[in-house]
């Protein structure tokens, strides 16, 4: 029995046999999706499965090459995002569309339709103010977006859509930056909205959320919908629908369940003692944090976005000045720059890939070799097209499943997830003492994450000390031997994984103890 017959009415939003082609790539190939009023509908699939393309068509950013999009059973052409908004479809992107230096009120008023030269009446202003207060933002005309925590900004984004009358809300990876408590809060809000008769579509990689919160699941693979049903199928069925590759699934399931096996702990490699970081705005971002990491050990740094983890990781990599002592193999590196730390055996995958990790117009090969262009003769040349170099780069790309394996291609032509794999591959290759990983699996599908996890396990076996920053509680428990919970710049909890629980860590992430 399908939901269609249960409800006996047309879906609020329906895509029928929608196709979108980019060059040689059929990003969406006769995709169908039905979303009903009153449901939370999860769309899952690996990187490149076509989820984002589908959502961009539903929100008017792209036009389908073939197929029909209907609202309440009536076919509708969405020529642009404004059309979609006018039809009651709203989208929350991964990167929020707000102006950080504007107040909440101004950000909301920006969404009022009517063109650049509309006249705002004082009544419209008052209505907007009242609306935001009702939505639970106390001083919307004085609070700036940049002063909100990340989950508050997301809540504001949702309010914005409701203000312009959205009936169908599409959220792209909404929980990537949230902690467990905030995730719980978000889904309870979404459930409330669904109960009010709205339709919620959530694109996600996190299977636990699908299992827990979604009333209906659609799985996409290779640009097609392979499964769409009322209740979440059991995990193995879900995974084979997503990947269709039984062998890899078993490997990945083992990795997730078997704990960080065979710990061979060595000496303390990284000793961080009382470091503090002052942000450029003068605020204390990291406040007196200390920890040690031993050879072969993984320290998982976890916290809700914006609690100082980013500053902590950047300062360890030498990208952010800090006070306090950082010792690597007995050598004080606190005052060294990033290159000098590299030479001392520290490697880093940073959080802001575009800012610190890659040169987008350079070739994939040049990016993989990026460390080699420093510290050598200026007039010498590391030829990124040389035969042995290409072989080496190809090995790295293959190992981390970067697709396509094309060393001479410009890096910008790779998808974000593939760029990320290439960066992790670069930092993971070669001898090192410490490996810093900031959100290494963000935006990667389960398979991509598994490859990185596998690699970190082998790094451990070779005696590398790993610091892995994540916002995902589950991931922290899978990868970390020791968990460091950050809250408001302080180390709220530093604990062995085996002697704690999800509840304790989740509470610490929200500052509950």
């Amino acid at each position, binding site marked *: 029995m399908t939901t269609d017959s249960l409800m006996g009415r047309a879906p609020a939003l329906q895509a029928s046999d929608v196709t979108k082609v980019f060059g040689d790539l059929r990003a969406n190939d006769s995709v169908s999706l039905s979303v009903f009023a009153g449901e939370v509908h999860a769309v899952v699939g690996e990187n490149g499965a076509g989820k984002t393309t589908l959502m961009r068509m539903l929100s008017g950013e792209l036009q389908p090459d073939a197929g029909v999009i209907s609202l309440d059973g009536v076919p509708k052409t969405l020529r642009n995002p404004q059309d979609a908004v006018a039809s009651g479809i709203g989208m929350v992107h991964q990167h929020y569309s707000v102006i950080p230096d504007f107040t909440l009120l101004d950000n909301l008023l920006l969404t009022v339709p009517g063109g650049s030269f509309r006249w705002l009446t004082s009544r419209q202003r008052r209505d907007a103010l009242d609306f935001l207060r009702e939505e639970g933002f106390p001083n919307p005309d004085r609070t700036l977006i940049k002063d909100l925590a990340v989950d508050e900004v997301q809540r504001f984004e949702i309010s914005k859509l409701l203000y312009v009358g959205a009936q169908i809300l599409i959220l792209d990876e909404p929980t990537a930056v949230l902690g467990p408590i905030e995730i719980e809060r978000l889904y309870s809000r979404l459930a409330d909205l669904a109960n009010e008769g709205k339709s919620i579509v959530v694109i996600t990689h996190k299977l636990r959320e699908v299992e827990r919160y979604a009333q209906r699941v659609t799985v996409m693979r290779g640009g097609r919908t392979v499964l769409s049903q009322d209740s979440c199928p059991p995990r193995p069925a879900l995974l084979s629908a997503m990947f269709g590759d039984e062998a890899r699934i078993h490997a990945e399931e083992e990795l997730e369940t078997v704990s960080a096996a065979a710990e061979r702990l060595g000496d303390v490699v990284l000793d961080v003692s009382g470091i503090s970081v002052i942000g450029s705005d003068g605020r204390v971002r990291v406040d007196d944090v200390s920890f040690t990491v031993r050879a072969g050990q993984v320290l998982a740094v976890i916290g809700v976005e914006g609690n100082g983890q980013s500053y902590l990781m950047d300062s360890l990599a030498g990208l952010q000045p800090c006070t306090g002592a950082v010792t690597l193999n007995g050598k004080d590196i606190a005052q060294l720059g990033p290159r000098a730390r590299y030479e001392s055996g520290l490697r880093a995958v940073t959080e802001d890939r*575009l*800012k610190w990790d890659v040169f*987008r*117009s350079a070739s994939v090969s040049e990016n993989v070799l*990026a460390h080699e262009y420093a510290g050598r003769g*200026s007039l010498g040349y590391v030829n990124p097209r040389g035969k042995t170099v290409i072989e080496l780069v190809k090995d790295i790309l293959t190992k981390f499943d970067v697709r396509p394996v094309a060393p001479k291609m410009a890096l910008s032509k790779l998808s974000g997830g593939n760029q990320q794999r290439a960066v992790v591959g670069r930092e993971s290759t070669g001898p090192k003492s410490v490996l810093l990983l900031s959100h290494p699996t963000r935006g990667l599908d389960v398979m991509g994450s598994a490859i990185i996890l596998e690699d970190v396990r082998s790094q451990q076996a070779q005696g590398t000390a790993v610091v892995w920053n994540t916002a995902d509680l589950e991931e922290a428990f899978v990868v970390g031997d020791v968990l460091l919970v950050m809250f408001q710049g302080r180390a709220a909890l530093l604990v062995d994984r085996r002697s704690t629980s999800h509840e304790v860590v989740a509470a610490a992430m929200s500052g509950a103890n």
Partner: protein
Amino acid sequence: MAVSDLMTRPSRGLTVVLRVVFVVGATLFVLFLLGINIFTSFPSFWRGTLGNPYSLAITLTVMAVITLTAAAALIPFRAGFVNLGGEGQLVAGATGATVVALTIGEPGSVWVAIVCVVVAMVAGALWAGIASFLYERFGANEVISTLMLNFVAFTVAEYFTSTVWPDKVAPQTISIPDATNFPLFGKFGSTPWAVLFAVIVWGLAWWLIQRTNFGFRIKATGESPMASLRFGYAPVRTRVISVFLGGAAAGLAGAVLILVVNRALVLDISQSYGYVGIAAALLIALRPALLPLGAIAFAMISVGGNTLAAVSKVSPTVSLVAVSVCVLLLLATRSRRGSS
């Protein structure tokens, strides 16, 4: 993001060639609209640019100068420094060369000419260095400072033409000694030397940018100074050196104009070659290998434009109009790929 786009996303070689063809064609069309019959006057265009030894020598000299000023734009551009000061750096170089030639005075020699070249390059580099210093030390916008320094350079040159060594009739200095020159090549005069300098700079620019670690650091610094800092490419040093190299190329162009063309510091010695060099560098999408291509296109437009103007009895300003049209067309036809 227009300029940075150009700096970091050079388009493919074929696209560049097509653009050259398009820009030259469209410019000819504009000339046609300005009252020049491009069909009937083509023979004189040909004679005026490449068709006889005399005009060939002029075109090659202009091409050499534009190659040098294009390099002056290209190298700093690739490092993320928008050097619009090629004009001023050229004038600084020309002034430096003149000062050397006139100070050492008669009888002059090849050795003096060599010193002229070296001093001109140093003068161009130092002139660019002013903007570089202002940029690195105080964060002064280089687009403004390089542009403004062009006017300062002209004023300095004017001091020499009007006060130090004024010529009796024209707004220029007295001529430099005849012996201060390179060995001449018959009716080509010293043009081959200009071409030789341009070829050397072309080769060096290509080799440096495309075939050295330092070249990768230049491009990396232009694209992402932060990532360059992280990888230890010393972005500040890299950028400063690039600006000096660019200034030296423009200074060399100034020396070429003094030694090969004018034999004196003329007030409007630069003939806008500094700006045309920027256009040429943009035309070839900042690809050093294509430097002569951009230079020949603009050399033919500016030399041929003058000939056409003379033949069709319209104002010689049309060649400047033609160059300006080219620049606008370049910006308009610039590839938009990957601008997101």
